């Protein structure tokens, strides 16, 4: 077995370790493939589909697809950019995202992704679903209006905290993140110091720590000056 395998992304040759995903190999090569449900500390699950690339003619989620020798990957193409934009729009209209009132604004990966794609308003009609807000936990609150069902909290709790605080429940458009407690988050064993409650795990403003709102002022937040993905592109 050769040390490294080689493949191309938009014609650029990229090297990958055996077993490495296309996304990880691209990151290492300084090529940014947009993603929302993927997180460097968590097992990828391919649910947001934003990282979809065309592999030898077939669409595949880069976060779960292993790199293979000689593979031809199309990433930054007009077709993929349009479809990714469509997906971002879908996430906006399926929830209730009011960036101007949201504590996560400026640190929100969904918002940052929309800016990166030049989205000012979604092309699809907002669905305005009825969603709950769960403030039962003493230190952490959940605003389901902002949830994009990436399950990063589910995985962080299982993989990093050794707990099982969250899990997907229901199906279809009614699918949501359930909590492992009789009624609400306050009935679970979630601790405010758990990784699952860390603001870098939830990409949006769904899981928020109480009493730390606006600690970093608007204007000094993560995506206020540079688009999401810049850190990877800079290498």
């Amino acid at each position, binding site marked *: 077995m050769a040390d490294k395998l080689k493949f191309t992304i938009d014609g650029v040759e990229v090297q990958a370790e055996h077993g490495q995903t296309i996304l990880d190999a691209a990151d290492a090569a300084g090529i940014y493939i947009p993603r929302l449900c993927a997180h460097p500390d968590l097992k990828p*699950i*391919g*649910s*947001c*589909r*934003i990282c*979809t690339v065309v592999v030898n003619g077939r*669409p595949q*989620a880069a976060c*779960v*697809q*292993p790199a293979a020798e000689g593979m031809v990957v199309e990433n930054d193409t007009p077709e993929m950019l*349009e*479809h990714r934009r*469509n*997906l971002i729009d*879908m*996430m906006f*209209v*399926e929830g209730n995202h009011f960036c101007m009132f949201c504590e996560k604004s400026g640190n929100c990966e969904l918002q940052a992704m929309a800016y990166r794609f030049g989205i000012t308003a979604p092309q*699809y*009609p907002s*669905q305005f679903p009825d969603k709950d807000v769960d403030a039962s936990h003493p230190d952490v609150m959940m605003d389901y209006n902002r949830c*994009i*069902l990436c399950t990063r909290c589910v995985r962080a709790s299982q993989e990093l905290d050794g707990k*099982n605080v*969250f*899990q*997907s*429940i*229901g*199906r*279809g*458009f*009614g*699918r949501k993140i*359930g*909590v*492992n*407690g*009789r009624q609400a988050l306050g009935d679970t064993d979630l601790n405010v110091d758990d990784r699952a409650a860390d603001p870098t795990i939830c990409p949006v403003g769904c899981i928020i720590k109480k009493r730390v709102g606006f600690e970093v002022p608007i204007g000094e937040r993560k995506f206020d000056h540079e688009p999401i993905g810049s850190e990877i592109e800079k290498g």
Partner: protein
Amino acid sequence: MLKEAKIKKICKRFGNDRTRMMDIVREIQQEFGYVPPKYYDLIAREANTHRVEVQSVVSFYTFLSDRKKGKIIIRLCEDIIDKMAGADEVAAAFERELGIAFGETTDDGKFSLEWTACIGMSDQAPAALANDTVLTNLTPEKVPEIIQALKKKADPQVLVTECGDGNNADQLIQTMVQNNICERGEVLLGDYDLEAGLRKAIEKTPEEVIEDVKNSGLRGRGGAGFLVGLKWEFTRNAPGEDKYILCNADEGEPGTFKDRVLLTERPDLVFEGMTVAAFAIGAQTGIVYLRAEYAYLRAFLEDVLNRRRAAGLLGNNICGKDGFNFDIRIQMGAGAYICGEESSLISSCEGMRGDPSDRPPFPAIAGYRVAPTAVNNVESYCCATRVMDKGADWFSGIGTEKSAGTKLLSVCGDCERPGIYELPFGVTVNELLKKVGAEDAAAMQVGGPSGQMINPSQFDRAISFEDLPTGGSIMVFNKQRDLLEVVEAFMEFFAEEDCGYCVPCRVGNVLLLNRLKQIRNGKGVTEDMDYLEKLGKATKRMSRCGLGQTSPNPILSTLENFRPIYTEVVRDNTSGLQKSFDVLEAMEQANEVTGRQSVLFHA
């Protein structure tokens, strides 16, 4: 506590094994009429899992409920075929008779009314399930008698006064379902030599068996058409001690009912095929994933399995072959179309919600319990048995070059003779229409909602993998039908059945459905056709599994083949305003709050 003891007992019966969660919660539902959330903690503790995992499973499947329902749940099939046969009138009769609406339970807790997706009875629609009992050919006139009989005796089996043909009348089935076999072919429904395939197979080496199946050209009958022999070879060659044979008996594609007939009339052929596969692959365990709608066949199938065990056709040293050990269990589903997708089916067999998995790894490498697993359709196993008996050449000599053998088609809708037709691949739509008595057909849906709708200029095309593939569903529509209503029904189905795991399928299907509804309500504009096409293509291209990759097909195939049904109802948008936006409706809340009507926008 009596109830707690019962739950503990049920958990224990399934080895306190969380991978048997489907069976555990199904049994609890049977016992209590629902799965009470107040016992989630207890179930989780007994099965060594978390309460949210229990909730996750219960909330996924439509036949499971966390709310108390009636002792008898009447689930009326909401398929378009049933609607065409008068399901709405039947529904109204049930509502009148019980004094409740669909989705409700009577105050005395005796009855619940629910709509349900295709129950596999499209050839005898309108049809319903009363608990596990199938009611076919319903009419509004029959409804009062049905309710009276059930009020007298709360056992839906009293409604079966006359059984259907063949094994439908078997002591262990006793159903009014008819087979409606209209044409028998030489592979599946003709005469055959019981166990000849298996006996010939074990005379060979496993590699030779796989070679035969490969040479026969047998492709998977569920719809995707992957070469069965190749799948078996991958599974055989995959590293691992334990290997599994799974049979997909979750035919949920609306309009498909061919596996129902195979399971009723050819159960041995199915189990024999699984046993052949086990021999070829080196598997010791088989699972038949039986859809909840076919629960009425379960006792019969269990009995066939027992008979096979007694005859040495299952168990240890099968047919006297030393070390050939294999047995089969039946895993009941609980109402989820997505579980017909092989990776979802595996998740469901493992006692989880039926979310599909990422591939790679493919099930042949890491499937059930992360072990190499071959998942095939009911019909595929039947074909494999026949290949073993009659030879690869015989099989590949039937049908077309790329589609060997016969195909079991289930035909329904506007035709004189709905039912089961076993025909060689390559049969043209025109030939089929003649056989079923529908030469005046205006449209045919081939392959169910996930397939395509074709118009009369395409009726010379052939049913085959290379031209018009189908898992078996064929729906016929005459020129009186409103095809946009059909499309909407199909999109409703997908929006109801998608698992919600990935964004494009979860959101895309709802957006497609909503825009379609607007168009049907006369609020469509010319640009909407473009909107539907772009959104449909995005959903197909970006979705994670076969469901979302095909769910926009009803819209995309009618935009292509029946464009006038759209152009006739949409109008040019001359005002530049969004026609779908109803300003008066949008003002309603504001009017309510302010207690007055808007000065600018009022009725």
